[in-house]
């Protein structure tokens, strides 16, 4: 069980690193997806560990996947809109909501 947790922890760390350092919006999105998957992994693992019959974990994983899909869809739509509007997908340069 700890193996699973270790893996999900590592993936989560990688995902965080990706989110924090990547300048390109699409890679940012990918990193977020990695985070989601790390979480799903935990869900499934714990579902397997406790009351396998209840499948709560797996339901959560499925919900997670669908939400990730939605998020990807809307995210990419946004990225396209931003690209069309500002001509760049570089997160570092999109700071028009600056204080």
């Amino acid at each position, binding site marked *: 069980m*700890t*193996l699973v947790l*270790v893996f999900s922890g590592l993936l989560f760390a990688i995902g965080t690193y990706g989110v924090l350092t990547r300048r390109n919006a*699409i890679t940012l999105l990918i990193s977020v997806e990695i985070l989601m998957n790390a979480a799903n992994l935990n869900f499934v693992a714990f579902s397997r560990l406790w009351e396998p019959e209840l499948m709560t974990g797996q339901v959560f994983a499925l919900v997670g996947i669908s939400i990730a899909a*939605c998020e990807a869809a809307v995210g*990419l*739509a946004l990225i396209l809109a931003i690209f069309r509007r500002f001509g760049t997908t570089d997160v570092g340069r999109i700071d028009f909501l600056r204080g």
Partner: protein
Amino acid sequence: MLDSDVQIALFAAFGGIAVIAALAAVLTRYLLRSIVAFGAFLTAIAGQFYILAADFVALIQIFVYVGGVVVLILFALMLSAVGQKHPLAVSEHRGLGAVVAYAVGGWLVWAAFGQDLPKAGQVPGETVAFLGRAFLDQQLVAFEVIGIILLAAVVAALVIVRGERL
């Protein structure tokens, strides 16, 4: 749970692939490679799901994620013309990101070892049947919510991209 060595070995293999693929996806300077690596990562995760006795989820993962999201991302890549030719700019203050990532990773991994978890229970043969049953009585809300969210997302995506020309 991961009781038999084979399973552990297999799970570890898939885990390794997943980690490597994720690292590749995050670190590579070429966007296309990053997406391909991401695809590999997803399939590896699907494999792990399969080993954790969640075959339906694994297949759904492949069906939705690899078949859908990765294609979507590729579409976005092509439409945004950030081609594979010129490498991507890398954020300047990577140090901070790294530090935070290490902190998060370190803490999670440390937490992983601290637990004394009970033995895993027996897995029912027909996971799909149980899943179906779970979805329609105890987790009905989740089922409905997924529907609504998916609908909202589709509409949102359409509106954002096509805006006036709807």
